[in-house]
């Protein structure tokens, strides 16, 4: 019994970043995605006895997460950032086809972050800290809020292009 619980904790530690990334692709609001991750984690825990050791935990967990997103869609009906069901499904399917590449991009992003200057790196990472908003990022980098929005837009574009470039170089 104890083995099963430690197996669950180990699997969650290994895969939760990817499970969150999966949810976040379907639910663009980060705080909503975090709440769904919480709910999905509880269900994963409850249903874990039905999981067969040695099979694909990530794919099993994502199906639970997918249903959590579907259930949450009703609650988000008034939000302006939730896609319709058809789009959710097509995004979800495409995402699974890209899993391997997304893992590579995750690693490349670490290298690209190092290439940013200190001020930009501090700002973008502050923005993504739990509970921090653009105001916090603006303060961390000594920018106005308007300036922070513009800078974040630019930094994201730089990082995205850098990651794409790193990957193409690796493949070459």
């Amino acid at each position, binding site marked *: 019994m104890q083995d099963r619980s430690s197996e669950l*904790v180990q699997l969650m530690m290994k895969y939760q*970043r990817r499970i969150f990334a999966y949810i976040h692709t379907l639910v663009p609001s980060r705080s909503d995605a975090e709440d769904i991750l919480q709910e999905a984690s509880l269900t994963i825990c409850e249903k874990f*006895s039905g999981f067969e050791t040695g099979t694909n935990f990530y794919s*099993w967990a994502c199906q639970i997460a997918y*249903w959590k997103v579907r*259930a949450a869609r009703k609650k988000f009906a*008034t939000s302006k950032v939730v896609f319709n069901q058809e789009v959710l499904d097509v995004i979800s399917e495409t995402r699974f086809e890209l899993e391997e590449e997304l893992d590579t991009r995750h690693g490349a992003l670490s290298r690209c972050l190092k290439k940013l200057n200190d001020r930009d790196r501090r700002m973008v*990472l502050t923005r993504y800290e739990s509970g921090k908003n653009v105001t916090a990022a603006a303060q961390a980098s000594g920018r106005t809020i308007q300036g922070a929005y513009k800078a974040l837009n630019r930094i994201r574009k730089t990082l995205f292009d850098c*990651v794409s470039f790193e990957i193409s170089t690796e493949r070459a």
Partner: protein
Amino acid sequence: MTSLSDKEILELHDLLDALVENNLPKHKLVRLENWISDNEEVRQYYIEFMDMSSSLRHYAEELISDDTEDTVEESPANIVSFWKPLFAIAALVVFGIFFNQEIQNFSFSTDAPKLVNSKGDDPAAPLERAPVIVDTVAVLTKSVGVRWEDPTQFRADLGDTLEPSTLKLANGLAQVEFLQGATVVLEGPVEFSLENPNEGSLARGKLRAIVPQVATGFTVVVPKGRVIDLGTDFGLHVHAGGSTELFVYQGNVIYEGQTDSGENITREVSGGESIFIDPYGNANWVEMPSEPFISAADLAFRSMEESQRRHSAWVDLSNDISSDPKTVLYFSFDNHSPWSRILRNESVSNSSVQNGAIVGCNWSEGRWSGKGALSFKRKNDRVRLQLPSHLKSATFSAWLKIDSLDQSISPIICSEPKSLGSVCWSVNGDGKIVLRTRNSGGNTFYESAVAFRSDKLGRWAHVATTYNADAKMITHYVNGRSFSREKLIDPVILTFPKAMLGHSSSTKGANGGVALNGSIDEFGVFEGVYDEDQIRRIYEVGRPFEVPNALGTRIP
């Protein structure tokens, strides 16, 4: 796969950037949604972009756990970042829920993770009903003459709870009450962002803040710094060029900022004092602000003037409705004494025998102070009606406030169901508006889409439904806008035998009937079909212009 042009990539990037910052306007979301759906390359770009956002979150959290700025290396052993779900799991394991609970027959396939059965039920349903995820920071409690800068961007309605967002007023005055207790009066043109329950930021324009002791620490971010309140009343003006004026009416505030040359500035400003921060961040003491700030009392006065103007417009409309020969039944609920047991039919073309008999219901306050309403709470609460009309086509209109949808039906007007043509107009347990008619073959139900979600409960809303026998169409309206339409099958002449307002005596499973759990403060039945303009006029003129005790009813 088609290849995106540079221009398209830039557009896509801007859309995604706005999406992750939660400020993508509705029409652009639709554009993005269609683009993702139709174009595989866009879809891939979207997924990679969102995945990058997740990865940034991961690295940011990892950095905190390491507490060193230089370590952003991916490290599988160092995954304390996603601690919250792990705590949840650890807690379940500790308390033995995981292994002691009867686990239902549940098995997800572990094949390729194609998402199956998009129409089926959630196999993980036992844990549903999680709390609604909201992040309310303030409530819009007054508005006078507000014109929004960009109608396509976010615009709040009076009484709306507000999540972190930016309010851009081209004109007019708005009062926002933060959940922590601070009140801010915005004077258009102004751009003000709500950041959290005790913080906002002023990009341009004027505001006046009234901060009780309980909200001490209320902060307004301005271009070159921030103003931190110590329990007071102050005015702020951010000019187009980036300079800021701060005037303190009473109490103390602290200004903290930084000049362009990197010098940190701190000023404590007391009642009667004023400072001017130039576009470079330098702070100077000045005698008085260049323009006065609108106070909450000024706004209340203007709001009262606006209320009086709005009220007289509603009285005019109400008189028009009363004198319209097509008005079959009209209850304005106005000018009744609190002990009155007769609900007066104001329709001049129909005789007073059509007055309603109030049974049980209590008189209460309607959409604005002084406006009468009837509340229907107990299961026998009702207004008995005599309505001998026979209508080929008809329009139903009501202002109502539903407190909860915990019963299968919230009746507005229902008549005895077995007579041919009898009508019941209601909101069902799912929040859909329903018109039930009795045809030769039995009852027919014309349901709208979901009109009442939790955010509409406890608030006044206008609903209308038209029954158009000529066009064979039923149209439901919510707050002046056509909401859904259904094809009318087998038209009948509408009748109202033993009709009751706010009550249905024939609801399945409800012995003795069921009453609307809520209030009504205006109701009409009209012969013929009102068009959308007429219905919108009833809504626009009659919509509430006060928010009594807005916070009191919204904070749990």
